[in-house]
């Protein structure tokens, strides 16, 4: 989230899309209710299903699953056609005025540079006009490895502050989105045109300085082959309306696991190192190569480019935390020891490698590939092709038991496996970081019973054993492993408090805990395991364990409750909450403001003493210094502006271009044969979801929750049920081209038939994900009840998040 849970109460309008927070995040979502009661916050809900969130919304709009880009594109068009954008904000805080290269084109669904054979773009034309030629020797884009490379050379971009130039971002954007008229959006999404216009009018009313609108979504919005572009669409809309950086505004992702935010920050993700530093690529032989090619360069004279300019300090401090005295200036701070991936290595790829027999082993630490899917049958095949598998978990999972799943003969599965019983959250201390980036410390409540051991004990013990093996036997390049800094008081079970201090960082000359990442150096005199957590455990102690309940501004920042990254800042990009003179756009709702000598309010996302008269750019993390309406070069693989394509499986052709599917999605071996090419056999659109009584799969082990929500069910419209003769409460079978599930039919008016295209009626079916064979009612049952038996093995064009939403099925009486 750019903002945080309690901040919902500061909104005038909240647009919830691809999420059901009243069901799935109720204790955070209640701040929207507080807003409604205290200031009349209006709530708009856009979703394939009428849910508990719809029930308390002022406006509910049903949408065909997977058409969210078109929905946001329609809103962007509505803003631009009706001039509802916050003009001063857009000119000051976005790249609307940047001039785009003459070589950039868009025609019939394709941007310039498309290579049909490779299914990739050469994105070199997706660039700004520069003041001078590019510097010699600049590397081109690297589409195979995805997002995150530096936007080109150091030459500044040309701008036209009047927005009159026909090649400026603002004008190009207006042209691009002109096609997304309310009528077109209605035909694509199935949202009746009058309802779309009502939503547009209501949400786009926040494009004034004194109104704040928030976009709230959950992982469902990302579960599409164009997932990144959907979120970009939300970001563009929010920038146009002046809603980024302000209290009550933002682009707010509600996340599903207790520490999914934290361990993304800590980089259990193939493409990053802690603190969102890019994993180096083959060819970046030295630290200098990396620093030359990865960090953003300032694209405007007024750009602070804080991230780009300090990247080396963050990486060197990380290497000092990992390799200590072994990381020296002489060996490039052990930079070469960092692995350089050969290809996208996301978890779809990992399981594909396993399926192909190229991967020996998987260690699952609280993760279960089979139920997570997609295409659970294919996932189980992948696990069956492994030589070994290690499960670290408190409870049995669908993965730990896959070799004796319904219909599987254990004798046919050769995978050797270990189940290692690990501690629950309640048996140890440590911090969780919530969706709003608040890192909160917890204390151990219980000791572990019997032979149950901490996750860290497993890691620590295995590390010591590996060290012993490499010292005794030798083996492949043991240097980084043997040099790894492991200074913990219990090497077999590194204490979490010591790790938290290491993550924060230390001044290696004084030995003191660092107060801020501003103190980090690139000469090896500081260490920090994750620069964005610098300040979380200082000389004053563990800031994440703070319990102060003061709210000095009344806006809900609670600056002394726990600690939020970065630097205890509660709203990201908050410099954009003020105008060119440093005055809040809305004086009743200031994020930060300039008092003549300093920025006050929230912790400024900006140099605290930078006089607004100096005109430095508000977005210190981008090379542009402003928010990006147009995402240049390799920031995305599939286009600088979000463009609508149909899902991998869809009931209609693309109505805005002749390009049906996202043209650059990666196709895994054998997967396309399992995609339905049209809706002739599988006519209905299915979507998966969660219910409040369950969290993914683990709650199948909790008796109270199994009792309150006992059984797998399928939600389907009354009209469809009547056509198929399916009674409420009877058994229904749902089939996709990949598999089938059988569950209780919940026949409902909550899923309405939608009219799309030239009037075609589309039914949608809803399938919750929680049930499987390793727990609860599913245990010992032969009935197929895993929603992901149905989903297609394909991911987003940028980040490979699977397309769990909006695939095609058929239904029948079971």
């Amino acid at each position, binding site marked *: 989230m750019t903002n945080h849970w309690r901040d919902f109460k500061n909104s005038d309008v909240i647009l919830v899309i691809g999420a059901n927070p009243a069901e799935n*995040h*109720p204790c955070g979502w209640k701040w929207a209710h507080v807003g409604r009661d205290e200031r009349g916050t209006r709530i708009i809900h856009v979703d394939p299903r009428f849910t508990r969130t719809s029930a308390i919304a002022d406006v509910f709009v049903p949408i065909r699953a997977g058409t969210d880009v078109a929905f946001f594109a329609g809103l962007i068009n509505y803003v631009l056609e009706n001039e509802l954008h916050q003009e001063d904000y857009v000119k000051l805080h976005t790249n609307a005025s940047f001039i785009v290269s003459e070589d950039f084109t868009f025609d019939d669904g394709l941007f310039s540079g498309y290579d049909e054979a490779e299914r990739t773009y050469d994105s070199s034309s997706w660039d700004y006009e520069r003041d001078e030629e590019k510097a010699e020797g600049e590397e081109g884009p690297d589409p195979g490895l995805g997002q995150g490379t530096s936007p080109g050379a150091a030459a500044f971009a040309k701008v036209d502050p009047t927005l009159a130039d026909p090649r400026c971002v603002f004008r190009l954007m207006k042209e691009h989105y002109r096609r997304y008229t309310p009528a077109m959006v209605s035909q694509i999404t199935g949202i009746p045109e009058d309802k779309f216009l009502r939503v547009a009018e209501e949400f786009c009313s926040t494009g004034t300085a004194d109104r704040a609108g928030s976009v709230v979504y959950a992982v469902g919005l990302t579960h599409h082959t164009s997932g990144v572009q959907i979120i970009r669409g939300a970001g563009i809309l929010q920038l146009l309306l002046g809603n980024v950086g302000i209290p009550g505004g933002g682009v707010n992702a509600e996340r599903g696991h207790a520490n*999914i935010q934290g*361990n*993304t920050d*800590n980089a*259990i*993700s193939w493409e990053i*190192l*802690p603190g969102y530093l890019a994993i180096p690529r*083959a060819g970046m*032989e030295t630290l200098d190569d990396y620093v030359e090619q990865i960090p953003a360069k300032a694209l405007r004279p007024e750009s602070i480019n804080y991230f780009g300019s300090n990247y080396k300090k963050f990486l060197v401090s990380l290497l000092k935390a990992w390799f200590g005295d072994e990381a020296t200036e002489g060996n490039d701070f052990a930079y070469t020891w960092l*692995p*350089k991936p*050969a290809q996208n290595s996301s978890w779809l790829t990992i399981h594909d*490698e396993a399926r192909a027999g190229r991967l*020996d*082993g*998987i260690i699952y630490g609280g*993760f279960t590939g089979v139920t*997570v899917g997609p295409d659970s049958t294919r996932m189980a095949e992948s696990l069956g092709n492994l*030589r*070994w598998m290690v499960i670290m978990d*408190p409870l049995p999972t669908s993965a730990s038991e896959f070799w004796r799943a319904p219909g599987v003969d254990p004798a046919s599965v050769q995978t050797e*496996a*270990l*189940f*290692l*019983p690990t501690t*629950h*959250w*309640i048996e140890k*201390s*440590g*911090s*969780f970081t*919530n*969706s709003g980036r608040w890192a*909160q410390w917890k204390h151990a409540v219980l000791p572990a*019973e*019997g*032979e149950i051991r*901490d996750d860290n004990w497993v*890691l620590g*013990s295995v590390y010591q*054993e590996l060290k012993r093996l490499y010292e005794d036997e030798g083996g492949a*390049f043991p240097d*980084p*492993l043997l040099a790894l800094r492991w200074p913990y008081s219990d090497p077999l079970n590194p204490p*979490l408090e010591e790790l938290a201090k290491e993550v924060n960082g230390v001044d290696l000359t004084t030995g003191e805990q660092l107060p801020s990442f501003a103190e980090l150096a690139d000469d090896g005199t500081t260490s920090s*395991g994750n620069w964005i957590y610098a300040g979380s455990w200082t000389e004053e102690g563990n800031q994440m364990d703070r319990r102060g309940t003061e709210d000095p501004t009344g806006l*809900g920042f609670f600056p002394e409750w726990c600690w939020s990254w970065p630097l205890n800042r509660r709203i990201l990009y908050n410099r954009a909450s003020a105008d060119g003179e440093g005055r809040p756009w809305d004086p009743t709702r200031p994020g930060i403001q300039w008092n003549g000598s300093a920025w006050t309010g929230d912790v400024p996302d900006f140099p605290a003493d930078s006089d607004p008269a100096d005109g430095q750019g508000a977005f210190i993390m981008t090379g542009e210094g402003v928010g990006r309406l147009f995402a240049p070069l390799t920031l995305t693989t599939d286009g600088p502006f979000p463009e609508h394509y149909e899902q991998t499986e869809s009931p209609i052709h693309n109505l805005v271009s002749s390009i049906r599917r996202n043209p650059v999605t990666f196709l895994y071996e054998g997967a396309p044969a399992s995609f339905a090419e049209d809706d002739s056999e599988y006519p209905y659109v299915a979507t998966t979801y969660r219910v*409040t*009584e369950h*969290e993914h799969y683990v*709650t199948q082990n*909790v008796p*109270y929750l199994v009792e*309150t929500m006992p059984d797998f069910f399928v939600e389907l419209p009354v009209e469809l049920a009547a056509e198929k003769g399916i009674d409420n409460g009877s058994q229904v079978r749902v089939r996709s081209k990949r598999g089938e599930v059988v569950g209780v039919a919940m026949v409902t008016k909550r899923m309405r038939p939608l009219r799309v295209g030239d009037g075609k009626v589309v039914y949608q079916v809803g399938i919750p994900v929680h049930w499987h064979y390793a727990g609860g009612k599913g245990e010992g049952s032969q009935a197929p009840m895993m929603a992901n038996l149905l989903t297609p093995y394909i991911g987003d064009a940028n980040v490979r998040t*699977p397309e769990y939403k909006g695939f095609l099925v058929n239904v029948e009486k079971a």
Partner: protein
Amino acid sequence: MPELSRRQFLQGTAGVAGGAVGLAAFGFDAEAAIREVRSTRIEQATETRTLCPYCAVGCSMLAYTIGGSSSNTHPVLVHIEGDPDSPINEGTLCPKGASTLQLAVNAKRAKYPMYRQPGGDQWERISWDDAVGKMARWMKDSRDEHFTETDEDGNTVNRQTGFSFLGGATISNEEGYLTAKLMRALGTVYLEQQARV
């Protein structure tokens, strides 16, 4: 008025609601009854602050345990409730958070390490020494077999593609950080968690 703690307040209202006032009107000495309702199941318990393990709202919780201070005893978890001081949840919990006691104390929890041999039809109990030994052996053999120091273009890549680690959304920052540190030092590129699901 002196400031009442939340629990004093609850106990006071519980006493009133318990009928003490009504009984006094009939001439009974209500003192014993009032003392009786003051005894709650968490009165003797140790209070420890923790967090909800489920979604990423980050609800604070208070957990109550009894016993465990003397040798050879294990504390018993008797109650978990929302922490009213939290500016996020202000004491509320959803159905999942409210039933976390059953997640923590659960008969289905695995109690010791287990091994499944190729083609085997059951888990077999093994010692931690053997489990760690096997795991390290598998990791080393797969790493050694699938380690690339220099790729075909002559670039230094120092990566191992023999095994993968997946997970981390349910463990703390500190455990996740240690995981990333160890896995990257091993040269692991197949490192992922639940962010994409």
